[in-house]
């Protein structure tokens, strides 16, 4: 029992929670932005893979880490544009288009990887983002390892939380995005473009999703593997409901999941002899489902989510 309490007292547990949460923060913010404008983006899982592959490959080809970030965001934006054209302009089913984007993105990323590296058996490595080393701050007890020995991408994720919050709550653009996800007719009646607002949100949201993938190959690991995204995109779709489409709660949700995951690894080493490891691997997902059941029953969905809008049709 004492061991259990000790887990929560160790700085490594909290540092790991934040590290595991980082790609989810990007993903859930991206999904939030899309859904706030009224578009569900189930392409997220595929866009994660695309971001992971393109970001890594850009660095491998010699572009530098921040160049890789830009490439990943742009490729995510491209897939967002594709999803937007299908669902916003043509008004096709958001579910079908999103799943299509996921299948296409996953396969296209793997195809590009194999085409570029036909003969390689062990994935080539890049020099990933390193842990920050800030004088004084990084050396603080507890706080230092948890916050100031993370990589720059974790800080980018936290900055994005603040940025998305600020846009949604403090700018006219945010008001318009929330309005277009609730009642597109209200936006159209005021002479604003429903199509542009939704396309913009989906493209920007997809770019954020791709950064979540890029974190995996450029910060958490240093190479691209098949299957490395492993359902993180889907978790974000659940987390955005858990977060009631609010950036602050999205951060909380991602951290909570990160904690579950960090906890299961540690419990596995402590109690792994008695309980099968699969139970622990399952635990974060089961706990997420339970948390969702409790929170999502009262979820206040954007009213126009999933509903396409066409000009001149009321």
């Amino acid at each position, binding site marked *: 029992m004492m061991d259990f309490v000790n887990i929560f007292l160790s700085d490594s547990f909290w540092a790991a929670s934040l590290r595991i949460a980082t790609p989810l923060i990007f993903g859930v913010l991206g999904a939030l932005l899309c859904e706030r404008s009224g578009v569900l983006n189930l392409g997220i899982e595929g866009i994660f893979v695309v971001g992971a592959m393109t970001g890594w490959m850009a660095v491998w080809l010699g572009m530098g880490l921040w160049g890789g970030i830009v490439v990943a965001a742009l490729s995510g934006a491209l897939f967002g544009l594709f999803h937007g054209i299908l669902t916003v302009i043509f008004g096709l089913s958001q579910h079908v288009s999103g799943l299509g984007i996921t299948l296409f993105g996953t396969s296209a990323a793997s195809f590009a990887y194999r085409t570029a590296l036909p003969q390689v058996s062990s994935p080539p490595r890049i020099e990933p983002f390193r842990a920050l080393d800030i004088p004084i701050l990084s050396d603080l007890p507890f706080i230092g390892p948890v916050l100031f020995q993370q990589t720059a991408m974790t800080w980018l994720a936290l900055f994005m939380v603040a940025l998305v919050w600020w846009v949604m709550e403090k700018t006219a653009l945010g008001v318009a995005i*929330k*309005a277009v996800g*609730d009642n597109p007719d*209200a936006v159209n009646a005021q002479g604003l473009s429903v199509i542009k607002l939704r396309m913009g949100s989906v493209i920007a949201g997809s770019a954020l999703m791709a950064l979540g993938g890029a974190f995996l190959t450029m910060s958490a690991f240093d190479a691209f593997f098949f299957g490395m995204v492993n359902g993180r995109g889907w978790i974000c779709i659940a987390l955005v409901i858990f977060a009631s489409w609010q950036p602050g709660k999205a951060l909380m949700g991602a951290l909570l999941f990160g904690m579950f995951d960090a906890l299961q690894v540690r419990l596995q080493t402590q109690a792994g002899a008695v309980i099968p490891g699969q139970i622990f691997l399952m635990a974060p997902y089961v706990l997420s489902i339970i948390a969702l059941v409790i929170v999502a029953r009262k979820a206040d969905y954007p009213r126009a989510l999933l509903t396409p809008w066409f000009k001149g049709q009321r």
Partner: protein
Amino acid sequence: MTNPLILSLRGMTKRFGSVVASDAIDLDLQRGEVLALLGENGAGKTTLMNMLFGQYTPDAGTVHVWDDTDHETVLPAGQPQAAIDARIGMVHQHFTLAENLSVLDNILLGAEPLFRLGRHTRDAREKLTRLMDDSGLIAPLDTRVGDLTVGERQRVEILKALYRDVRILVLDEPTAVLTPQEADTMFASMRAMVDRGLSVIFISHKLHEVQAFSDRIAVLRHGRKTGEMATKDADTGSIIRMMVGEDLEVPPRVAGVPKKPILELKDIHTLNAGGGQGLSGLNLTVHGGEIVGIAGISGNGQSAFAGLVSGLVQPQSGAISVNGKAMLKPSPKAMLDAGIGRIPEDRHHDGIVSAMSVAENLVIERLDAPDVQTRGFLRKSQIAENAQDLTQKYDVRGPGIEARSALLSGGNIQKLILARVLETDPDLILANQPTRGLDFKAASEVSRRLFEARDRGAGVILISEDLDEVLALADRILVMHNGHLVEADSRDRTVIGLMMAGGRAA
């Protein structure tokens, strides 16, 4: 002397396929006047306004606007922004508000630049406070629109237009969703704004409000303007003739002959469900051959009462019996089988399955019947034949019996429901707001059918907010207030109106 005109529509024509929705309509609006645009559903009112606002591109015709310096502009066709720039505003019948935003955000939406750091709302608040003082239209600026009542939402819509300094305001059926009190307040506010120089066009098919509120009336029928006159010179009969093209047939009231009791409710109590008022200690007996009118302002227990009679709401205590047989487990199916036909309040959502065909909707309450199915297989030809007969008999017009019922107009959906209900020869008919939103013709058709059913021996319960309708139809009038149902001992409007407001102890 400035030009008295502020807006002139000239020769506006719009064709949809072979249908001429608007046929060379001319319409002038003078500065500071209230023009009522009157006409039945489908007369072309909305088409005309959609052309004014650039939502539709007219096949012919021009829109002329004069600004404050009397400078004439011809609005380019089919461009909504042109109407906004000419400071023409419209309050749609279906509100265009985002429910997840505050009142202030809804009003500012589109009026402030999208790409600007931060918000500058202080000036906006000041201007809105001034507008609210001037117009008497009060709305809580920081409340979410989703938490407002319908009347408050409409005020937000009007404030939204006023905030943009509109010179011409178009109101599309503004009172369709308001209580009589809210409608009076709304009109008083509009009058105040007109006195300050606003010009108003309001679309309606309610004669009394048109006569009470407008300066001039223009009447449309079948896409043509059939008349135009000053309101003070207008007489009701001639307006109706212009609207419907013939003398309106008002069904004469002949008292019903009550027969044996059909529905008996004894001391019913229900919970307050979904924010609605429940019933407390309700007693009612409805006989065959009579129309029982339930008057009252909606939200006083009507939903619970209608739900009870149709089997959707379970009583907490009390007894229900139909034709002398106690209903121990009331359910929609049990009530239907006991001979109760239902005309629901929300005909679009509860009355039909809009994605299914007209023919299917006509048999949807009796799928067990042998002429509808054998051994689980639908008898398509029988169903189609049935639909042919009924659509003819009840004059249900639309794109055909195989078309999705969503494509029918409100009046035709109601006729479809009437056909479905009346053809099963029910012992009791529950008609909940059966004519709300219908035009004269469709409404008088509904009344006629209800009289017919009564004379055949059925009992009818009529729930209506429209006191005129209750007085015209009901043999017996009860008033619902605060979950209580009280028999009105007079047919005097003042007495009943007082009871509706809870003026007498129940």
